[in-house]
Every structure is written in C-alpha cells, then in structure tokens.
C-alpha cells in the first residue's frame, strides 16, 4: 500500500470514528488562531473542530505552514487560540490562569519535540527529573519513576549517560521517556521522527503504540510522513489552517 492509499484509508477510518462524543478526553470547537504582523493578519487556524479519546493515536498531517504545529501548541497550552473553545473532559482550559495552565501541563501533558530537545550538559536522569521536580515529587520517589519511564523505551542502561553523548535515536527515545515520566494522559509529539532514520523513527512509533495500548493515554503526532501517519488510529489532514473534512 503506497502513502496515498494509507492516507485515504485513514481518512475513511476517521470519517467513521471522529464524531465528538461526551466521553472525549479533549474537545476543541471553532478554534482559530490569527497572528498579526506588519503585512496584516495571518490566519493559521480556521474553525478547527475535533475530539480525541483515550487510547487513540491521532496524526495531524499537512504541508509546512498549514498550521499543524500551531494546533499542537494550542492543545499543549503553550499558546492561546484567538477564538474558540478547548475542553478537557468538563474543564474549559482556556479559562485557566497562566499558573494553572502550567500546572495542567505538568500533570496531564507530555511533549516530544522535533529537535530531540534534551537539556544539554545534563544526564539522562537529570532530563527526566525536571518534570518531577516541577510536579513536586519527593526526591526518593523520583528514581523508580525515571527507571520505569526509561524501561518503556528500553533505555534504562543509559540512566547516567550525558545527553550529549547519545545517538539521535536514543535522544528522541529519552525525549519520549521524559514525556512519559509524569504519567500524562495526552502526549503531544511535534515531528517526533523528523530527524531520525526510518528504523529509529519506527522504533519511536512502536513506543507510542505500546503506550496507547494500555488505554489510559492518547497521543497526537504532528507529521508529514505518510508512513508514520499510517501507524496512527486516525489521521487529521490540515491545509491552510483548516482540518479537512473531519470532526
């Protein structure tokens, strides 16, 4: 099956599965995002509606500049939409204060960025410890949780290695482990395989599949790789800030 065939297959799946439901983990409606610069307003998201459930892995696909990263940042409360609503179960997330949003991020969300963003000059342990420090986890409780997260990506033997000395694939798996260490319900991954070769890219996706298989987590993956998208439960194609054909 070629890439286009996979995409069409997933679109079909989404059309049948994507209707908003009261048991959705997150639900966004009429979401718009407009940036202003000297040349005038730039609308990067236009009336986006969709819902995500626990145990789902959703791919947001689209060309560069289509607004998929902006959507991910809004879902991660890293930036606010210009208008629309964003609910986490019964909670309206857009009414939270800046501090409450930060607290929400560290308790419920996990991020994996494209550029294998690990803290430089720090060990793997230290990289995974930060989310726990911010969450206020006691020092003696941190090592088992860090070990557990690293075991899920098969990197427990790299615990005290410097992040600078890891390979690209290992760095991205550490980033996945860091996103998992706080036991989030939603993992947001921005091009998580973008800088990895095919083998390591699929390894990272395998980890995501294992995570959603448990059923208590959902994953949103921004990608432009149809092979990666094909491994997701649903695909949301985006073009010019519009989520095409899906609810």
């Amino acid at each position: 099956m070629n890439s286009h065939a996979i995409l069409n297959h997933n679109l079909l799946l989404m059309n049948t599965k994507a209707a908003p439901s009261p048991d959705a983990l997150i639900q966004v409606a009429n979401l718009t995002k407009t940036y202003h610069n000297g040349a005038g307003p730039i609308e990067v998201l236009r009336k986006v509606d969709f819902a995500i459930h626990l145990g789902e892995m959703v791919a947001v696909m689209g060309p560069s500049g289509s607004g998929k990263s902006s959507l991910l940042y809004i879902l991660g409360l890293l930036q606010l939409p210009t208008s629309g609503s964003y609910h986490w179960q019964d909670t309206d997330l857009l009414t939270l204060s800046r501090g409450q949003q930060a607290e929400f991020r560290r308790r419920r969300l996990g991020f994996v960025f494209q550029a294998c963003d690990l803290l430089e000059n720090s060990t793997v342990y230290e990289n995974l410890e930060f989310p726990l420090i911010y969450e206020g986890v006691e020092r003696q409780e941190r090592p088992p949780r860090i070990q557990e997260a690293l075991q899920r990506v098969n990197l427990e033997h790299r615990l005290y290695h410097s992040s600078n000395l890891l390979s690209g694939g290992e760095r991205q798996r550490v980033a996945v482990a860091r996103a998992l260490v706080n036991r989030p319900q939603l993992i947001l991954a921005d091009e998580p395989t973008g800088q990895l070769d095919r083998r390591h890219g699929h390894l990272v996706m395998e980890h995501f599949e294992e995570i959603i298989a448990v059923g208590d987590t959902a994953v949103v993956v921004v990608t432009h790789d149809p092979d990666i998208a094909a491994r997701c439960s649903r695909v949301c194609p985006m073009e010019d800030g519009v989520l095409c054909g899906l609810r």
Partner: protein
Amino acid sequence: MRVSLRQVVRHRRRYIGVVLAIAIGVAGFISIITMGQDVKRNFNEDLAFIGGVTIIRTVLEFRPQLPLSEFHPDTVEAIQKIPGVTVASLVGMTRLNFFWKGEPDNLSVVAVDENFWKMRNLTAISGTLFSPQAVKERQRVVVLGKRLAQSLFGTDQVAGRTIEMGHDVYRVTGIVGGLRDINMEKSVFVPLTTAVDRFSRELVRDRMYVRCATWDDVPAVAAAIPQAVKAHQSAKNLVVEVSWENLEHVKKVAFWIEFFIYLAFAATLILGGMGIWNIMMAAVRTRTREIGLKKAMGAEDRDILSQFLTEALCLSLVAAVIGVALGRVLVELLGFWIGMRPPEELFFTCLAISLVFAVVLGVGAGLYPSLQAARMEVVSATRYE
C-alpha cells in the same frame, strides 16, 4: 537551589572572571574596614610627622605684667587624660655655659621628660636615647643633636664620650635623629629631672607638646587643653598652637587617597555586578530553548525566575565567600605588617555585611535577566535557534 548550583558548577569557566572581580572587591572592603582604624592611625602617624600636624604646642608665654609661670605636674597629668591624647611631654629650654677643649662657649639645652622621644617619634642615629629610668634616676646623661655631635667630635660615634656643662660632667649616650629643626640639631638633650636638680634657676618648664592619636582628635584636644590647665593653675598667658594649615593639607591628601581606594573597590564591585548582569543576560539568551523546554514540562514563570535568580545569587555568594577568605588573609598580613590586631568582632561584622551585600548584588544584578527568562513565550523559546 540544587539545579542552579549544578548550572553554576557546570559553567564555572564562564563565571570565573566575574566571581574573581567581586571577590577582590569584597576582600578589599573587608581589609579596609577591619584594618581601617589601625592603618589610618599608622598612616596618620607617618603623614603627621611630615607636617607635625598632630602635635599641639602649648606654651606659657612670657609676659612682663605676669609672673613667670611653669606647667605643674598635675596639669601635665590632666592633659594626658584628655581623650584623643596619645602622649604629653613637658619640655624646658635654656642656654648653659660649657667648656670644650679649655675654651668657654654656650650651649642650647633642651630638658625633656621620658615621653619626649615617643611624642616626636625620635630614634637614635647612633648609641641610644636615654631611658625613662635615666630620667627617673636623674642621671647625668645627655643625647646630642646631629650637628652638635659633628661639630664637637667630628664623628657620629659619640656614645660613652663626656661633655662638661655648668660644673658637671655628663656622659653622652647617643645622637638623636629625625628632628627636622636645625636649632634642635645643634642642641643637647638632658633629662628634665637632672636639669631641675642641676640648673633649675636657669630652666623654665614653660612648654608642653601634646600628641594626638589622629588628626581628627586635634581640634577637640586643642579646645580641651585650656580647661585642663585652668583646673590646676593660672592660664592667663597660655598659648595653644596648632598647625591648622598643615593639618588641612594633610587631611586633604589623606582624604583623596582614601577616596581613590574606596572608589577602586566600589568600581570593582560595580563591575562585578555588571558582570553578573551581563553574564546572566547571555545565559538567558543561550539557554532560550532550555527555558522553553522547561516551561513545556510545566515549569511556571516563578520556577524559571527563581532558577536564574538563584544562579545569580550563587555566583555573588561564592564570590563573597572567596572574598571573605581573601580578606581574612589580607587582614592577617596587614596585621602582621603594621603590628596591630583588629578586634575579631569587627571582622565578623564585615563578614555579615559582605554576605548581605552579595545577596543584594546577586538579586539586583540577576533580577532583570531572570525576569526576562521568566516572561519568555514558550513557543518562540522552543523555536529559538
């Protein structure tokens, strides 16, 4: 705190210049404040002797309408007790006949008590200056001025020689140096007690030299002397002479020296503070992605603020601790050098001030960069190249 300390340790090479600048400033501050009084006293002494500005000359002037008067021993004692007085020395002067190689001549004689050498900070060029014991025991000993010794003996090696004054023979103990007065250099110095015994009729003890601890004490002591004299004797013909003009000059010189020293240390500390500010701004810039990443992990603005502020604080505190240690070494060296020991509590006061100052410097210089870091937008920070 642990995270910030880790960052400081990991980037220690970047921070070392700033830390050293602050440490030197703190060490200078501690040594100046701790040793300040002792150094100033020493400095005063050296400068004061050049201009004689801390010496007050007190004379009971001869006036025809008033009886000839001398300073009483009680007056001398009362003046000694005035706060700020280091030493007071009673002096009598006269001219005596003496015979040298069979020829009669006359000689300027200065009769001095046991405090005179200390009061003028005089030392012997050769031999010794007669001791307090010689004064007490009224010994027939003399010390010669340098010019007199040369004119009499043609050499500086005069200890043990004798001269005949009046009807008595006196043993020379040495030559006094550092007089800076040509008439004094041509005089012979005799113990005051001996002079009173041997030629009291020719001798008038009408002058007293009072040396103050510092030049700051001079005005108060000069004002207190007439009261102290009046309490024990008539002071109608009392004249108190202070070299006000020289005193002002010396004070001005000292003020500028002190000012420039303080300025140098203040500049070091200000540069250190600016260094912290600059280095923290650079750290915020180079660690922009790290900040974005931490915020994405759930760090609140206050977490980022406190991390960078703690880093700045760590820098200034580490610098202060090094500065305190350096300051302690400097204080010990200075103490050894000038032979004085400052009070321990003064050092600990300085230590406390330095630590408080370090906190103020760290917070002051680190606040703006830390606020910049805390207010950074997550999206632009995570996308920063």
